């Protein structure tokens, strides 16, 4: 049974979605328990499958037992890299799901079943992208996650989210098509779609790996993924899509979609083409790091100009993507940049979840979307504010949050690789983040107007899985438990991922096949 876990990760949310589409439309209250149970099963199997990879090394799982003789077949591959990411995705999905127990308005209640179906299917797509060992299946799963995320953006009741979803769809489809085209060229040159097969062929056959077709394939794939992850010049779809979509969707999409795309980029560089091939092209590394520097600076500056909380966070994501892309391309001798980039995927998923949850709470229970309206919120919602502060400190990079350690590894990579512009951009961006968040702290703690009401009592009406009728009044008190639990859990995870960074980094570096002696020197 235990060796079937990689398949269970995918099947649990898939069958959950099927069950909801069968019964959830009639019995709305059944939706949440089914979704919750299936995601918990996925989380448990992700932990199981990951642990096996952490202890025993990478392994393959062939769906239906069809071991591939000709590069045809559906293979799942788990190693310590994607084991970590699978667990992170499952954790984020479970926490984001808890946040959605209460619909934000009565208008949304009719959409409950559809929302949960899309939510679970998106999880299937994300798990699949992470775990698959086949370049074409990767495309299909990218499209599964993309199509569901268009739906999740458009499901909101705001008037502008439909337009945002349409633009997102156009950009996303073009990105995926470029990826598909790149895979076509790769297949043309290597005759295989299995990631490991392609890697072996490229590593052993110089005629193939030096041909222009393979270079074309790499560039097409890279551009496609960059569109998907909103890398700086291609980021246009992101701010509208993530700030106009409903809070429940934003808490799932913002932490995961772009991060998983970064993972795909790392996977393509590491496992398909191989780092030696990628960095064997002089100038590429410098070029991409400069692009990343521009992305970091542009994202930070645009974030400064925003007045809405969610939009500010969206531009911060653009900057964070710059961190990760730049880190992955640093090409420093000990691969600290790549390590930091992957660690930052995990760290940023937690930070973004935490901040989007607070933004969601402020909007859902207080109707606040502008930074200026936050005055005095620390006194009114102390627990929510604790979560917000931890998330903000992680974004700035204060130890012992995970944000500090990821910047530490990235900067170390930048110094060892001699990419000083990247180091400078990281530091400037940290300063900008400090300005951004301390501005909010000032408004939220000291306030501008005299605070009305000092109602500190927390909302202790216990949330059961049955949803309460939507709140229309916004009393001056703490958010309900259904929102606080995921928020505080995310805040705790930020600290935990930070404190246990040594172990996590060791697992990451095992996948890069760097001897662990190098790792232990550093701790």
């Amino acid at each position, binding site marked *: 049974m235990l060796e079937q876990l990689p398949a269970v990760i995918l099947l649990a949310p898939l069958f959950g979605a099927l069950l909801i589409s069968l019964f959830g439309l009639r019995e709305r209250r059944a939706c949440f328990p089914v979704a919750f149970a299936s995601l918990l099963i996925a989380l448990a199997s992700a932990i199981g499958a990951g642990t096996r990879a952490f202890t025993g090394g990478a392994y393959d799982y062939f769906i239906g037992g069809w071991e591939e003789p000709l590069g*045809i077949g559906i293979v799942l591959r788990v190693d310590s890299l994607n084991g970590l990411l699978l667990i992170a995705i499952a954790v984020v999905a479970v926490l984001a799901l808890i946040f959605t127990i209460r619909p934000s308005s009565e208008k949304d209640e009719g959409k409950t079943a559809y929302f949960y179906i899309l939510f679970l299917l998106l999880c299937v797509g994300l798990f699949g992208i992470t775990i698959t060992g086949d370049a074409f299946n990767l495309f299909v799963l990218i499209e599964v996650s993309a199509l569901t995320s268009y739906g999740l953006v458009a499901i909101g009741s705001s*008037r502008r989210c*439909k337009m945002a979803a349409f633009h997102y*769809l*156009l950009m996303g489809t073009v990105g995926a098509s470029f990826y598909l085209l790149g895979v*076509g060229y790769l297949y043309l040159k290597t005759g295989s*779609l299995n990631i490991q097969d392609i890697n072996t062929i490229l590593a052993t056959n110089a005629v*193939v790996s030096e041909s222009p077709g393979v270079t074309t394939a790499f560039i097409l794939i890279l551009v496609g993924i960059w569109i998907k992850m909103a890398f700086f010049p291609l980021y246009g779809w992101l701010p509208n899509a993530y700030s106009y979509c409903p809070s429940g969707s934003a808490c799932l999409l913002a932490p995961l979609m772009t991060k998983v795309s970064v993972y795909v980029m790392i996977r393509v560089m590491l496992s398909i083409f191989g780092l030696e091939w990628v960095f064997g092209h002089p100038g590429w590394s410098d070029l991409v790091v400069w692009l990343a520097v521009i992305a970091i600076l542009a994202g930070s500056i645009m974030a400064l100009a925003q007045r809405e909380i969610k939009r500010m966070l969206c531009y911060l994501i653009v900057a964070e993507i710059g961190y990760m892309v730049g880190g992955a391309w640093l090409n420093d001798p000990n691969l600290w940049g790549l390590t930091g980039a992957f660690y930052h995927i995990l760290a940023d998923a937690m930070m973004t979840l935490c901040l989007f949850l607070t933004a969601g709470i402020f909007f859902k229970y207080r109707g606040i979307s502008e930074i200026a309206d936050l005055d005095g919120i620390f006194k009114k919602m102390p627990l929510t504010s604790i979560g917000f502060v931890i998330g903000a400190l992680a974004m700035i990079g204060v130890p012992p949050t995970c944000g500090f350690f990821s910047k530490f590894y990235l900067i170390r990579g930048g110094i060892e690789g001699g990419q000083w512009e990247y180091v400078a951009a990281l530091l400037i961006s940290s300063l900008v983040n400090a300005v951004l968040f301390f501005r909010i702290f000032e408004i939220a703690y000291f306030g501008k107007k005299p605070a009305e009401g000092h109602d500190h009592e927390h909302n202790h009406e216990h949330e059961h899985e049955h949803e309460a009728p939507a709140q229309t009044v916004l009393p001056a008190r703490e958010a309900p438990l259904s929102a606080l639990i995921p928020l505080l859990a995310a805040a705790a995870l930020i600290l935990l991922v930070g404190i246990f960074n040594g172990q996590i980094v060791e697992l990451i570096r095992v996948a890069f096949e760097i001897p662990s002696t190098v790792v232990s020197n550093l701790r």
Partner: protein
Amino acid sequence: MVEFFLNTVKPHFNFWVYVILMMVGLWSLIAKNNLIKKMMGLAIFQTAIILFYVSLGVKDGATIPVLEHYGDYAEKAEPAGPDASKPASKPASKPAPNPASMPAPAASNPADAFANPVPHVLMLTAIVVGVATLGVALALCEMIFKEFDTLEEDELLRKIKALHDDA
């Protein structure tokens, strides 16, 4: 001009067409004002990629990849002789374990009897994905039209801006 056409375009005709189609799609995606036209551009873009993949699997003188048809090929291959390895069938890499070490395709290689089915099968999936995407896009267009009463992008942007100013 004619030289160029005969030497460069003709042997890779499919690939020229796919690039041109792709650019047509991309152009209408970017330049058109109407959302439906943008969507059509997207469809053309995706179709171009399908054409590319289908061209990958094609070989000169090959038959459908079903074993019973092997006889058809064997008869034809005799008179055709070395013609079977013309440059037009360049993308003839069969998903063999290590295709690069394969000898130049000769009539004796039984794999040459069949068109490569893998890219064609992949495209079945890609077509389904494309249909789903267009379905979602159409649904979104309908919602946008109900909301704003127009599908022209400039008008939409104006109305959305007005919305923002009101708020």
